């Protein structure tokens, strides 16, 4: 029982990071209409930028904050170079391009930073004990940060003009255009928001585990599973489903070989496609 509670707590932490990437994926799906295979590797880039910045400035908080800004700029630059001119192409063409982006980014990260395991210089602190559950300050940091970022994205989507425009373009692109919404600005706003999500997600992943060039790639499958489970294009669904996927993979790891965490995410995905192909929260 205590093991199960601990697994649920770990699952929340992992699920929060999956949810960040899935929220970004679902926005790209909704606005740019394609499955962005590069999502994980974009996260990896920001994680490594934070590593380098920390070696320069020392403070992890300042390094992470600046890395989020730089990482977001990288995501927008990737959009401008790789995706912008394919706006009228088929979703499949964009998907294939995003594979190319993913592979190229991973190769660049490996060439710059090497393939060995690296870690941030974080203060060593004792785990906090809450009843039967033990969480490290890093875990708390991950939960707090991802909650703040998700809340900010929701506020943007549901309370600001650009968010409302964004949802309008996602639902009815033609109607949005005839009602005078500048779809190019919407797309750039979306990539900035996605840049923020993958950058924060990547740095949090790097805090939780060691940095490798496969850091983000390894969480891509759970993030896709969460995107589909939450219903493609549903921001609330993506985050909720991220937590569901995180908790269920951690719980399953108690019973199965922990190496099969991705397999559990895949089974969740297959089950959803079988019974609720439009996602659990779909109307």
């Amino acid at each position, binding site marked *: 029982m205590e093991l199960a509670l601990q697994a649920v707590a770990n699952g929340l932490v992992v699920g929060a990071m999956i949810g960040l990437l899935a929220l970004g994926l679902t926005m790209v799906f909704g606005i740019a209409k394609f499955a962005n295979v590069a999502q994980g590797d974009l996260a990896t880039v920001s994680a490594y930028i934070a590593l380098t910045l920390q070696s320069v400035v020392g403070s992890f908080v300042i390094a992470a904050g600046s890395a989020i800004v730089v990482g977001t700029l990288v995501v927008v630059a990737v959009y401008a170079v790789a995706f912008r001119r394919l706006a009228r192409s088929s979703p499949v*063409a964009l998907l294939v391009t995003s594979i*190319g982006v993913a592979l*190229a980014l991973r190769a660049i990260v*490996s060439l710059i930073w090497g393939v060995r395991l690296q870690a941030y210089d974080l203060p060593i602190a004792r785990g906090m004990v809450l009843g039967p559950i033990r969480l490290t300050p890093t875990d708390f940091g991950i939960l707090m940060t991802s909650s703040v970022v998700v809340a900010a994205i929701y506020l943007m989507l549901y309370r600001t003009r650009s968010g409302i425009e964004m949802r309008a373009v996602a639902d009815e692109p033609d109607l949005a255009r005839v009602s005078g919404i500048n779809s190019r600005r919407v797309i750039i706003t979306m990539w900035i928001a996605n840049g923020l999500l993958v950058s924060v997600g990547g740095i949090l992943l790097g805090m939780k585990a060691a940095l490798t060039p496969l850091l983000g790639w390894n969480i891509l499958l759970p993030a896709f599973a969460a995107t589909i489970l939450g219903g493609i294009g549903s921001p609330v669904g993506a985050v909720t489903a991220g937590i569901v996927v995180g908790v269920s993979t951690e719980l399953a790891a108690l019973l199965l070989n922990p190496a099969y965490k991705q397999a559990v995410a895949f089974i969740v995905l297959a089950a959803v496609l079988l019974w609720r192909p439009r996602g659990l929260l779909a109307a």
Partner: protein
Amino acid sequence: MLIYITGLLVFAGLYALLAAGLNLQWGHTGLVNLGHVAFFAIGAYTTALLSRAGVPLWLTLLPAVVAAVVAAYPIGRLTLRLQEDYLAIVTFGFSEVLRQILSNERWTGATNGLPGIPVLASELGPIRHPITAALVLALVAVVLVALRFLIESPYGRVLRAIRDDEDALRSVGKAPEGFRVTSLIVGSGIAGLAGWGYAHYVGFISPEQFAPTLTFTIWTGVILGGSSLLGGTLGTLVFVMLLESTRFLSALGLPIGASQLAQVRLLVVGLSLIALMHARPEGLMPYRHRQRLVRDGSTN
């Protein structure tokens, strides 16, 4: 030297088979199968397990192909009513999960893999190499001829209609679902066949030989070449040779170590994919339907 050349021929043949399978799926049907290497692995592991248990090589060919087909079928069924993106995600996930299973299960040899797989024509000594090469190239010829009939048939036209305009296809009363599944399983069966040849040439398989990079290499080659059988095959072979030639970068005095070579290749694959999708997404030699009407004396 002979062994080196025949080895190249065998690998060229295996790449050609993998390209042929993906060409049917992507080039003609527009299916985004990101797990091609998984079906290659299933073919290789099936034949390796059976032949290590004493089953003669020739009797393991069919099971290797069937195993790949059987694995592809539920994936096709699961995604057949959904958008293309779903097939991409599911096949990608399947391939990653399969590699984890192969790396962790005792009966697949885990990360150590399966050594001691009987090789083709082993009783013939050194001339086993040219004989294997001839055999693999014969398999390639058979597969390409069969595929040519398939893509020139009414069935092939339906596949391209799925790729180009599914709604138009529905409007003439054809349901794309069944065609998509058969295209997926036939292409995967061909990958399984390639796995059979691979296992019985190298004699040792392990999970790391079936990394997703192989899938993406074949993808880039097929996109480069285009959907015609000649284009898809040549594109893949040329692209693989280009990747192989990166090993000479260090000979040119560039400071590239052995460990960086794999990253340089990955970079080449990635950048090629991006550039191709921008410059020429249909490839250099796309399939063109023969104009039968012209031959009949009428024009459209």
